[in-house]
């Protein structure tokens, strides 16, 4: 589950919905007024901990962590445009050998909040630190590529040989194989600098040394984090952060419904606050009646792909024909209602694996039918596959903490129309993950899941979910889909450096995988957020389906 452990967002609860306006994506009224420099921005978070330790963080490049830490590369995202990789501390990287060796050059005159210069050695130290067992839990896409299987971090006195720092400004990564998306990987949290030799303590997250516009002023566990200006941050050397407010206060452990009520009421400090959690269907229904509040709800145009995974290694779903029947048997319309009340609130019906807003995505539908599905066609396909009487006793596991019961029941009812009988088994998050991601021999036939890529590349959409290497062992290939041809295509696309060319390859893989029907795409889940009337420039770009914290400011 992407986003599950992201710090700024809490997926527990509704999976994300939108206000009624389906595609009228535009910054809200308040956002249209240009925010000024200064003021105190408040972020109301449901989460109890905000992890400012880059090694432990899974935060997106444009949310909380980005306020304090810069990374080697950054994201530029805007409404109506696919997200782009742009320079942050360094440039966007150059490769001379087709994507196996990547060299980044840092900008001149960068400083940490303590005044010491930021060097390539600090970036290297930060990456190395993410290998230490004490600092686990973050995004680790770089680990395998840097060949660090036996590396246990820099605190045991060893360096990671695959990273070289010939001078204070240059850093070179020698990968185990060509990887075109490395500049994107360099935008993940572990590529934030940590002053060389520092950060051995477990509570580094509470006083992390900043490179971004803000530093941690106070950190009260579970209650509040106050960020104040980092005097050594130079805005002219940072193109992804506006750094408008003087202070940012993150209030932790806030009840989502209370947050929604407070922001709707829009009084006092709440005017300059926004909620970090998704606005639930119940809250949205409530906000409909309040014109002011309604105008302050910002809804993403698209979002994570919700899908029904079919266990391709277990009979009878090891038969592609049977799996294709599921494409027609599901009722995407009922799923939309179950997840958010209406189709417009829930998000568009999905037909591709690559999510909207990702460069190179191609829209297609291999299994066209009505939104309600086509049970007759499903039955016919099942009959062709030798199951004229349908299927019985399939087990659908789901993660209880994601509020998926209603959705699973909607799927159950839809499949029953095509004589597919399903039993629902709900597990707690850990147990679910143990079964779907770690078990060598799981017993489920179906499972519901959703995925948002961790960086804006089709690669992050497809490889984690469909490469053979991601089956079990902690990977997210929960349909346990294994196709040597697809594996080869994935590796080929991953090693393509040219983005346009790679995009075409990924789109072809998308189609190729769906021909085998390992999953049934359901919807691209919309997320809605509400903000106070003085919060300006609050927008959700095409990707990711979260507001860009780095650009938000306070209007006077």
């Amino acid at each position, binding site marked *: 589950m992407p986003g599950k452990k992201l710090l700024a967002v809490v997926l527990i609860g509704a999976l994300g919905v939108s206000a009624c306006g389906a595609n009228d994506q535009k910054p809200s009224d308040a956002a249209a007024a240009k925010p000024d420099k200064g003021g105190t921005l408040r972020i109301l978070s449901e989460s109890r901990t905000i992890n400012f330790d880059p090694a432990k963080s899974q935060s997106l490049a444009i949310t909380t962590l980005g306020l304090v830490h810069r990374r080697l590369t950054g994201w530029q995202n805007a409404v109506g445009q696919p997200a782009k990789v742009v320079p942050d501390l360094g440039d966007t990287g150059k490769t001379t050998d087709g994507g196996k060796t990547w060299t980044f050059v840092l900008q001149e005159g960068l400083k940490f909040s303590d005044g010491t210069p930021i060097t390539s050695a600090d970036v290297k130290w930060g990456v190395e630190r993410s290998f230490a067992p004490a600092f686990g839990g973050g995004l680790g896409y770089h680990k395998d590529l840097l060949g660090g299987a036996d590396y246990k971090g820099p605190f045991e006195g060893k360096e990671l040989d695959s990273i070289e720092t010939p001078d204070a400004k240059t850093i070179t990564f020698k990968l185990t194989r060509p990887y075109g998306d490395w500049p994107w990987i360099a935008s993940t949290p572990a590529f934030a600098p940590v002053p060389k030799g520092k950060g051995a303590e477990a509570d580094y997250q509470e006083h992390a040394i900043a490179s971004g516009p803000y530093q941690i002023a106070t950190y009260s566990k579970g209650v509040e984090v106050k960020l104040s200006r980092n005097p050594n941050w130079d805005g002219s050397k940072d193109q992804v952060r506006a750094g408008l407010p003087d202070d940012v206060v993150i209030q932790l452990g806030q009840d989502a419904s209370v947050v929604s*009520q407070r922001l709707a009421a829009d009084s006092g400090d709440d005017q300059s606050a926004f909620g970090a959690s998704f606005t639930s*269907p119940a809250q949205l*229904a409530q906000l409909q009646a309040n014109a002011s509040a309604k105008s302050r709800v910002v809804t993403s145009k698209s979002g994570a792909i919700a899908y029904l995974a079919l266990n391709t290694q277990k009979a009878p779903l090891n038969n592609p024909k049977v799996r294709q029947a599921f494409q027609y048997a599901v009722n995407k319309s009922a799923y939309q209602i*179950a997840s958010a*009340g209406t189709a417009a609130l829930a998000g568009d019906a999905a037909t591709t694996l690559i999510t909207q807003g990702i460069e190179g995505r191609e829209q297609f539908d291999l299994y066209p039918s009505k939104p309600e599905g086509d049970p007759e066609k499903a039955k016919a396909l099942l009959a062709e596959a030798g199951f004229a009487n349908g299927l019985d006793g399939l087990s659908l596991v789901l993660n209880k903490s994601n509020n998926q*019961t209603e959705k699973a*029941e*909607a799927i159950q009812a839809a499949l029953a129309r095509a004589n597919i009988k399903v039993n629902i088994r709900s597990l707690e998050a850990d147990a679910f993950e143990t079964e779907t991601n770690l078990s060598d021999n799981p017993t489920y036939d179906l499972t519901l899941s959703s995925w948002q890529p961790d960086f804006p590349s089709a690669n992050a959409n497809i490889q984690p979910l469909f490469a053979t290497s991601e089956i079990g062992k902690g990977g997210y290939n929960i349909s346990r889909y294994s196709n040597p041809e697809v594996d080869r295509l994935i590796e080929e696309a991953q090693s393509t450096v040219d983005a346009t060319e790679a995009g075409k390859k990924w789109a072809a893989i998308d189609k190729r995988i769906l021909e085998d029907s390992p999953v049934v795409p359901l919807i691209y889940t919309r997320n809605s957020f509400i903000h106070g009337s003085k919060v300006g420039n609050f927008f959700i770009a095409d990707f990711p389906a979260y507001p860009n914290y780095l650009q938000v400011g306070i209007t006077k």
Partner: protein
Amino acid sequence: MSTPVARSVPAAIRSVLARDRWALAGTVTVVVIGLVAIFANVLTAIEGHDPYTYDATALDPNTGLPAGSFGGVSAEHWFGVEPLTGRDLFAIVVHGARTSFLIGLLATLVSIGLGVLVGAAAGYLGGWIDRVITWSADVFLGFPYLVFMIALGAVVPAEFPRALLLIVVIGFFGWPSTARIVRAQVLTLKERNFVKAARVLGASPWQVFRTELLPNLWGPVLVMATLSVPGKIGLEAALSFLGVGVLPPTPSWGRSISAAIDWVSVDPAYLFFPGLALFAVTWGFNALGDGLRDALDPRSVTRR
């Protein structure tokens, strides 16, 4: 000597119901909701819905809220429907009564049964048995049982019948308070002549318990039971409210109330009906129990 007390229980109930209007009202409430629970299927069949079927047509297409006013209350849906799912709320409440009664009554049975046996054993046999039991009761009273139940509810696999788990757990943790009262009763009864006589005549402890002690315990036991049913029902609802009670889609008042929190300002009916039902049952049992206690106060029973 023991018979008059035994006979006095139904008599006391009759007199309570005749004199005490609150107790009567409570009894009527309990009986009505009890009947509703028993005939849940019939009632929902009359209404024409079940608590499980989704119905998107009963929802407002713009918000997912029930279509129509006050939660969509209509001739079609007597209590309206659930937001987002369109499931019939009357069916959910009525079947929820079944869940509540089943768990509340059986858990009370478990805890009272256990408490009486253990308490009587402690009081009558005395010695090390008494010490062990008294000490265990202290342990259990010192146990943060709600915390533990929450923990247990969260870890027991979904395959295990949830109602059974709740009955056993809620019932089991209820024994010490009953046992304490029963023990105290038995300690005084033990010194009474009819018990002494039975003992001298060579009756076994089990015989004494059945023929001499139990008939004298009915009064206080009945009061305790009546007064502890609402607690047990409330506990089931509280656990479901916290998300560790009966599993969906089995209807439960506590879970409906919990789900209704988020909707309360736009769809108060969703909170109103299950909340009212839960309140009515707890109130009914409490009113009845209070009346019974006034008539069958444990102290007055033993003094008699």
